[in-house]
């Protein structure tokens, strides 16, 4: 197999990979130092055991054979030395491995915390541009891939120590024998390097292949219902098989490279021992070395074989490490598009005032904007319904109102303060939004309502009652203490929506935004909720995104959106009379009858 010269890309990978390792050492210097100390002990003991065996041959075995007798004390000393060195060796291994685990797992924890910190702090707009899988993988597989080479790193340092010591032993023994040994080491390194160069390309391709297989599986399983209802299992399987077979071929190519190099690396130390025997016998004949010297050096090569392979482990894992780190870094380096506001003005009493001035909003660079130049004011305490066709920008408007997105142009003001200037906590203290798909945490119903803030039992129950959640919560096995499972999986869609509503209501927000928040609730229950809200006389300005006419009619005023523009606003009756598009939208069902 011909080894291809490393490309600029491959050289960059090695450079970047070593940079990642240096960063890992800087992050956790203490366990690294301990691991290196353990590794050094291990290296010394390993070379020591070869020296000891040579010594035993010269002072115990050969004299015993020559003289036909040996002192028990000498024999005992030999045994003690061998066992003692083995214990030191074992101790070195325990220290090195324990500290290496500490370092590796510690790095996982450290960078997972940092990724999680970014994931919780970066704005929603950043999240929306990325897939869930990509972000979760940053905290999971990518962090692990980054620090794979960290585990064998201390061993590698130990191996270097071992090589220096072994070189010393060789030179001290005999220059001719040393020459043989010193030829072996560069040969092993050269084989190792060309092995790496040869395996890198198929290994990188295999890594991409794995990602592709995962992508196809993810998408196909997510669309399982569509695949099944349209009977497209065969086509999906063929699509998956194609990517699986590409991966298989790349992995076999990796295997082939291994098959070429592994036996060579296995054979080299043995060949060196044979060379030592040949040269050594001549040197014994010349009276320059003893039998023990040959045994010592031969044994040294037997012991060195496996550790020397460790040098290759790190190089082999570098590409994966670099790719992982680049993904992790993308999250760590991400910064909000706009700086966060800091102002925390005192909040006035009573419902909030909301003003929109020339507000535009566009998702990414996709030309068409979701909202265009919306100007509107909401009088404190009023209930406003936002109405529009599918895709007219209602949800976008809702998230702008509570500062979850920032307008690309114009400004949204709460009580006269531009939201962009306000500290996030200053907004969340005033405003609450309930989404169509509200997220429930894997915690109790109570915790899902309080979200860790201190509300009294009474307040929680009152909010739940207002959201018409009290009845079904009472029927749960442990009432408010029932854990709802991952993403609230044990509750129905309508139940989740009601818990989410209670979560907003318990905060008695001065601005309450309901974004189609009761769509999964049965119509009769929804009506109870909405009437309850009206009767409860909340201290809130309420903005409701809705389709149902009854919901719309509860509003003091209606804002109509049409393809991102404010088409009109007024009372329901006024709009019905003067805006045909509005009438068409809200009376669609009646007219269909």
């Amino acid at each position, binding site marked *: 197999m011909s080894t291809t010269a490393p490309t600029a890309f491959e050289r960059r990978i090695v450079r970047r990979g070593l940079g990642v390792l240096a960063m890992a050492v800087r992050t956790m210097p203490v366990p690294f130092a301990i691991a290196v100390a353990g590794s050094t002990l291990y290296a010394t003991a390993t070379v020591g*055991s070869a020296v000891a065996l040579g010594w035993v041959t010269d002072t115990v*075995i050969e004299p015993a054979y020559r003289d036909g007798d*040996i002192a028990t004390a000498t024999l005992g000393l*030999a*045994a003690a030395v061998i066992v003692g*060195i083995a*214990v030191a*060796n074992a101790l070195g*291994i*325990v220290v090195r491995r324990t500290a290496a*685990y500490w370092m590796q797992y510690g790095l996982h*924890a450290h960078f*997972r*915390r940092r990724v999680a910190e970014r994931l919780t702090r970066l704005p929603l707009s950043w999240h929306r541009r990325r897939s869930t899988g990509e972000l979760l993988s940053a905290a*999971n597989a990518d962090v692990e891939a980054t620090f794979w080479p960290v585990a064998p790193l201390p061993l590698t340092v130990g191996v270097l120590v071992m090589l220096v010591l072994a070189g010393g032993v060789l030179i001290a023994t005999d220059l001719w024998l040393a020459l043989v040994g010193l030829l072996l080491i560069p040969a092993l390194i050269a084989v190792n390097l060309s092995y790496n160069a040869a395996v890198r390309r198929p290994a990188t391709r295999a890594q991409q292949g794995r990602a592709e*297989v*995962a992508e196809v599986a993810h*998408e196909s*399983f*997510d669309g399982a*219902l*569509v695949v099944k*209802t*349209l*009977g497209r299992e065969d086509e999906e399987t063929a699509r998956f098989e194609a990517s699986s077979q590409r991966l*298989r071929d790349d992995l*076999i190519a990796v*295997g082939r490279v291994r098959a070429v190099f592994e036996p060579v690396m296995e*054979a080299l130390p*043995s*060949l060196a021992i044979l060379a030592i025997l040949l040269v050594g*016998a001549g040197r*014994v*004949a010349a009276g320059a070395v003893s*039998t023990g010297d*040959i*045994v010592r050096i031969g044994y040294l090569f*037997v012991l060195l074989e496996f550790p020397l392979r460790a040098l290759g482990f790190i190089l082999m894992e570098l590409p994966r490490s670099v790719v992982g780190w680049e993904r992790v870094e993308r999250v760590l380096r991400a910064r909000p598009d706009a700086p966060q506001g800091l102002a925390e003005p005192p909040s006035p009493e009573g419902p909030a005032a909301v003003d929109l001035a020339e507000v535009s909003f566009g998702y990414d660079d*996709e030309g068409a904007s979701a909202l265009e130049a919306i100007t509107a004011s909401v009088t404190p305490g009023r209930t406003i319904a936002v109405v529009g*066709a*599918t*895709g007219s920008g209602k949800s976008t408007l809702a998230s702008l109102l*509570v500062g979850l997105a920032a307008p690309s142009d114009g400004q949204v003001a709460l009580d006269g303060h531009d939201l962009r200037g306000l500290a*996030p906590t200053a907004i969340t203290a005033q405003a609450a939004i309930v*989404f169509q798909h*509200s*997220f429930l945490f*894997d915690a109790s119903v109570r915790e899902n309502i309080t979200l*860790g803030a201190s509300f009294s039992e009474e307040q929680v129950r009152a909010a739940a009652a207002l959201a018409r959640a009290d009845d079904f919560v009472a029927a749960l096995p442990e009432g408010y203490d029932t854990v709802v499972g991952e993403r609230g*999986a044990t509750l129905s869609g309508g139940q989740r929506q009601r818990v989410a509503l209670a979560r907003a209501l318990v905060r008695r927000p001065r601005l309450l935004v309901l974004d189609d928040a009761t769509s999964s609730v049965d119509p*009769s229950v929804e009506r109870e909720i909405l009437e309850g809200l009206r009767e409860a006389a909340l201290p809130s300005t309420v903005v409701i995104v809705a*389709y149902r*006419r*009854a919901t719309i009619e509860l509003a003091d005023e209606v804002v109509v959106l049409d*393809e991102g523009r404010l088409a009109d606003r007024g009372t329901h009756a006024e709009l019905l009379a003067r805006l045909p598009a509005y009438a068409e*939208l809200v009376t*669609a*069902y*009646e007219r*269909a009858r």
Partner: protein
Amino acid sequence: MSAPDATDLGIRRGPAGAWATLVRGLQLSPELREGLGLTLALAVVATAGKVAVPVAVQQTIDGGVVGVDDPRLGVVTVAVALTALALVATSFAGYAMTYRLARASETALSAVRVRAFRRIHDLSILHQAAEHRGALVARVTSDIDQISRFIQWGGVILIVRGGQALLALAAMALYSWQLTLVVLLIVGPMVPLIAWFQGVLSRAFDTVRERHAAMMTAVSESVVGAATVRAYGIEDRTEARIAERIEEEFRAQFRAGRLASTMFSSAEVVAGVATAAVVVVGVWLGLAGGLAPPGEPWVGRLTAFLFLVTLFVGPLRIATEVLEQAQTAISGWRRVLGVLDTEPEVADPVVGTAIPEGPVGVRFDGVRFRYPTGGDVLADVDLEIGAQRRVAVVGETGSGKTTFAKLLTRLMDPTEGTVRLSGVPLPEVAFADLRRRVVMVPQDGFLFDGSIAENVRYGRPGTSDERVRLAFLELGLADWLDTLPEAEHTRVGERGESLSVGERQLVALARAYVADPDLLVLDEATSAVDPATEVRIQRALDSVTRGRTAIAIAHRLSTAEAADEVLVFDDGRIVERGTHADLVARGGVYAALHASWMAGTQAHT
């Protein structure tokens, strides 16, 4: 806490124990069995060269160096040359073995991957329990990657070193059975000790896996719940929760790591003790004449034996290193085998009966459905829906509507009773025929990453762009399509996320429409579409599906108002059946639902 455990949902756990996993795994992968004997034989040969080296050492020392005044270099040269030849030969065997193993294992694993993928598609768990999808993806990705990684690295090492240990043992026995016995007596107890430790370690790593799953659940909340976290300003709390789980995982990992380190080092001490014992007993034996025939030197024999002990114990040392990897690989393999050993609840008949051509009629006889855990979801359903009828199914959340649709389309089989299409019992209809004739549009309008046209074509491969446009036109959606930047060529993004939920439903509808089924089942297929568009679609569907049977699960009762007939579900039973007008007049469950709906959609007076 809630680590994804697919076993709750009917996926089998797979064989118990490492050995059973290996046996079942080989049973299910003929590609792996083929030529395995030769590969293993090559593995033994591959290590022969290494074991020959100590023999060369012995020959050199005993025959060429020790006890002779003038070292006989000829003997040494012959011994060295022969061993070198053996080394070269065994290197070729090593190449053949490694390559054969890689080829066989990757071919087998790729086949297993594809079969597991297909099997998962055939199981109901995918659409029943969306929250377990991630775990199922792992079955065909990381679980198999782990097996592959293990076979290519640890597996090769285990096989080669295993062969090396066997050959070294044989050579040791040839030199001295007494010394071999001594070594076996010292190393022997290590085997049960390692097995015991292995159990402890595997439990420690189980804890690590559990903590890892809990940690990822916490992290996923910060991603999936990103909007909620920000809207309620609970960033600190969320971060603290995650940090806690990260810390818990770290503690479990570190504990397992410490255990593993201790285990790895124990082999080292045993090797040292064995070496020391061989020196002491060997010298004593040599002096007593037990190592070599009288008059022959035994220094080389003893030295060779010491080399062989290292070759024999070394694999033990390395085995402990790769066992951890083996553990992960075997549990991954077990999970994959569990999938392959799970029979689909709904099976494709071997010989299918075709549904007679033409409009499809539906008949339910004594149908009941219940999940293994829990009571009836649907009971006592007896009904006949004539061909070309348009039926609306209504009822509150949890009344059994969706289960009814799933039984109708054979996404599930009833626990009792029979569903027939045009007189043919569903289990007798080949899937290919069934899916061509019956199409369901689910509420979640899932789209694949691609253009709108490509997604519509998914319903009927080979549909031209013109036909795609025509479909939207016929459904009354041409003007919506034209508002998009590139009309039908607009890309929908991953999972269709560039479109709104309602827009995705429109594309899904067009996709089902071009499939041209004889029975169309709509499961709240327009729930996220605005009323005006919904009514428009409704009218369009009415005209384009004329002549076919259509069953619509309705979220909004406007659908029911227009249907030929309404089925009302309540608590798993059909409680009312009739035309909209009849049912309103009857003043029962439907009348109440309808009144509430009217109140929601009409002007308050």
